[in-house]
C-alpha cells in the first residue's frame, strides 16, 4: 500500500470531512435526557456515561433471572437503540432476591463497565443500585381516595415505603432504589405509584 503525498492528503481530508458530516448527523439524534428517561438496570453509570460505555450486547438482558431487562427497540433512535431498560409495569427488578448469586446478575454479566458490580447486600444495593425513585400520584392512589389498599407496602423489598394513615404509602427517598416492585403490584389502572428515573451518581 504505497501512497503518494497527494493521495495521502486527499484521504486525510476525506476522512475528516466524512467524520464531521457523520458527527453532525449522529449529533442531531443525540438529544439530552428528557423527563421520560428510561429506567436503567442496577449499578448503571450516569446516563451520558452509560450511553457511551454500553456496547449494546444484551448480556444483562439475558442474565436477568426475572426477565425484566429489555433492549430498547431501534425505533427509539440510534443513540438509545439496543441499550437495556426496565419497564417495571411489565416486569420489575427483584434485586436477584430469589436466586443464588454473589453480585446482582446483570452487573456481573456486563463486559464494558456500563453496569458496575453491585454485591447482593442491602447496603451495597442501596448505595449503588440507583435505578430511580418511586412517586405516588395522590389523585389515583386508592388509599388517598377513600379506599384502603396497601398492596405496594407489602411489595417493597428494601423497606422504603412507610405506612401513613389508612395504609397510605409514603416513599422514603433515601431508602428507595427504584426496583419498581411497588409499581408492578399496584392494582390501579393507570398505576398510582410509578418509578421515575433519577440522577445517578
Amino acid at each position: 500500500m504505497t501512497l503518494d503525498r497527494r493521495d495521502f492528503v486527499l484521504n486525510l481530508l476525506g476522512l475528516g470531512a466524512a467524520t464531521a458530516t457523520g458527527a453532525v448527523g449522529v449529533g442531531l439524534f443525540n438529544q439530552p435526557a428528557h423527563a421520560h428517561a428510561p429506567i436503567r438496570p442496577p449499578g448503571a453509570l450516569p446516563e451520558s456515561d452509560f450511553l457511551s460505555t454500553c456496547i449494546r450486547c444484551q448480556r444483562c438482558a439475558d442474565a436477568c433471572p426475572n426477565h425484566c431487562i429489555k433492549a430498547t427497540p431501534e425505533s427509539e433512535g440510534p443513540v438509545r437503540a439496543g441499550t437495556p431498560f426496565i419497564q417495571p409495569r411489565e416486569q420489575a427488578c427483584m434485586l436477584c432476591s430469589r436466586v443464588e448469586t454473589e453480585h446482582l446478575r446483570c452487573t456481573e454479566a456486563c463486559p464494558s463497565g456500563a453496569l458496575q458490580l453491585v454485591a447482593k447486600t442491602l447496603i451495597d444495593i442501596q448505595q449503588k443500585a440507583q435505578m430511580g425513585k418511586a412517586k405516588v400520584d395522590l389523585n389515583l392512589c386508592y388509599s388517598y381516595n377513600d379506599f384502603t389498599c396497601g398492596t405496594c407496602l407489602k411489595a417493597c423489598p428494601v423497606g422504603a415505603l412507610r405506612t401513613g394513615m389508612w395504609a397510605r404509602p409514603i416513599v422514603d427517598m433515601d431508602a428507595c432504589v427504584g426496583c419498581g416492585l411497588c409499581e408492578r403490584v399496584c392494582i390501579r389502572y393507570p398505576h398510582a405509584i410509578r418509578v421515575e428515573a433519577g440522577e445517578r451518581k
Partner: protein
Amino acid sequence: MTNDGMTNDEFPKTLPKVRPSTFVIRHSSFLVSIARRSIQLLSVGVLVLLPIMALYTHFKEAHAIHDLGENNWRNVAVRGVERFVNKDAGRQQLVQRTQGTIWSARLFGVSLSDPLAGAEAIISSRSFYKPMLWSLLIPVAVTVLFGRVFCGWICPMNTLLEVVDKCRRLLRIAEIRERDVKFSLKNKYFVLAVTLGLVGVTSVPFVALFYPPAVMSREVHLFVFGSTVGIGAYVLLAIGAIELFVSKRWWCRYICPGGALYSLLGRFRVVRVERDENKCVHCGECVRVCQFDLRPMLVQITGMECTNCGSCVRACDDDALRFRWMLPVIGMTNDGMTNDGMTNDECQTKNASSKSTLVIRASSFLLASSFVIGHSSFAQAHHILGLPHYSYKENYPQAPTLEYPATTGPYDVLMTSFPGHPVPGERTTIAFYIKDRNTGLPYELPVSMRALKTATFGANTVIMEPLIHEPTTNQHKYFVTFPDDGEYIVELTMDVEGKPEVIPFLMIAGAPTATKSVVIAIGAGLGSFLLVVRAVKLKRDRRRRLENVE
C-alpha cells in the same frame, strides 16, 4: 456451454482450465473444508443457542419449567436444554453462565468480545475496563495467530452469504446476467476509520446497529424471545439482495469495518497460504473461487486480507497451494492487489478506482451512515403489554394492559385500556386520566369520546357515537366493544383553555392483517412467479430451437 457461473471478466479466458481425469481428494484441504463447515455450523448453532439458554435460565429461575405449555419449537428447545442439564448443578451453572450476542457473549462462563466491540468501547468511553480486556484476549490472540479467520470460519453473515451464493444458480437458470461490481478493497479501512472516528467524536457506540453479525445475533434474540424481528432484519435482507444482484460479497470486501480490523490485527499471522511456483500453471481457478476477491495466483504467500478459508487450496488442481506455518512476515505482504505482479485488468481496475476514489469512498461512507440514520425515527407511544407477575403461565389471572401517554396544553393525558389487546366482542374498559402538569390536579370537566374503525381505503366508520362523561374517582371511564379484528381509533375530545382539542389513540383488536405485509407478500409472490415464468419460457424456446435444428 456452461461457464461455471463465473462471468468474471477480469480473468483471461485463454488459459485452459485443467482438470484431472480422475477424481482425487486432496486430504488436507478436504479436511480443512470439513472443519470450516463444522465451525460455521457450530457458530450458527451458538447464535441460536445463546438466547435459548438465556430463556431456559429465565424459566428455571422463575420455577416455571414445568409450566412451559404446548409443544412449540421454543418450548421444545427449552425442554431440550432442561434434559441436557438433567438436574446436574454443575451443568446448570454452565448454562446459566451463557448469555449475550455474538457481539459480546459469555459462553459457558468464558467471556468473549468482538475486537471491534472492544475498540469501540475503549474509544467511546475513553477508559479501559478490565473484564472487557479479558474478554478480548482469546479473539485477539486467535486473530493475531491465524489472521482474519472470523470472517471465513465464524461470521454467521458470511455463512448466510455463502447460502446466497448458492441462490445465484437460480439467476443462472432464469438467465439473468450476474453482476459483480467491484470497488477498492481498501474502502473498508476508510469505513473503519470513519466509524471509529465517529464513535470517538460522538461518544455513541453505534457500530452494533449496522455490523451484520451483531445485527443478526440481535434479531435471532428478538425472534427467540418475542417471535418478531426488528428493522435489522431488513438491513440483512438488503445486504443479501445487493449481494445477489449487484456485487458479490460487497459488504465483506468493501465495507465491513470488522473485516478491516481483523485484517489489520492479523497482519503478522503465522498461518498463510503459500504458492509453489514450480507447480502453479496459472489456471486462475484459485482467483475464481476466492470469496474475498484476492489473487493467490499472483503472490508467493497470502497477505493480511486472506481469511484462511482454504477454498483456493481446495480448488487448486496442481497441489500448488497449501497452508504453511511461518514466522511473522515483517515487510509488506499483499494479496495480489498492489503494483507488483498486477495484471492488465488489475491495472484498469486500479486506474478506474483512483479516478473515482473519493466518489466511491464517499458513497460507501454514506451507505454505512445511512444505516445508522435510517434506524432512527420518532419515539412512539409506549406499548405496555404486561407479562404476569413472577409467572410465565399464559392464563395467570392478570390481564395485560395498554397505556398511551399524550400531552395537550398544560395537561398530561394517559389513556389506559383493559384488556390491552382485546378480542372482538370483548368488553374493553378505556379510561382517561387527565392531570394538569403545573398544579398536579386532575381534570374535572366532562370529556367526550368516540370510536372509529380505520379503513385502508376510504373513510373510517364510526362504531361508537360521541359520548360525554363526567369523571369518576378522577378518571373518565368508557366501555367499548370492538366488533371485529382490525385497527381502531379512539378519539378523545376535551376542552383545553376554551378550545376543543381532539386526541386520537390507536387500538388493535384481535389479529388484523397488516396492509404492509400483504403488499410485501404479493410483491414477492409476483416477483418469483415472473422469474419462474421467464425460466420456463427460456427453456421452452431453447428446446424449440434445438428441435428446429434437428
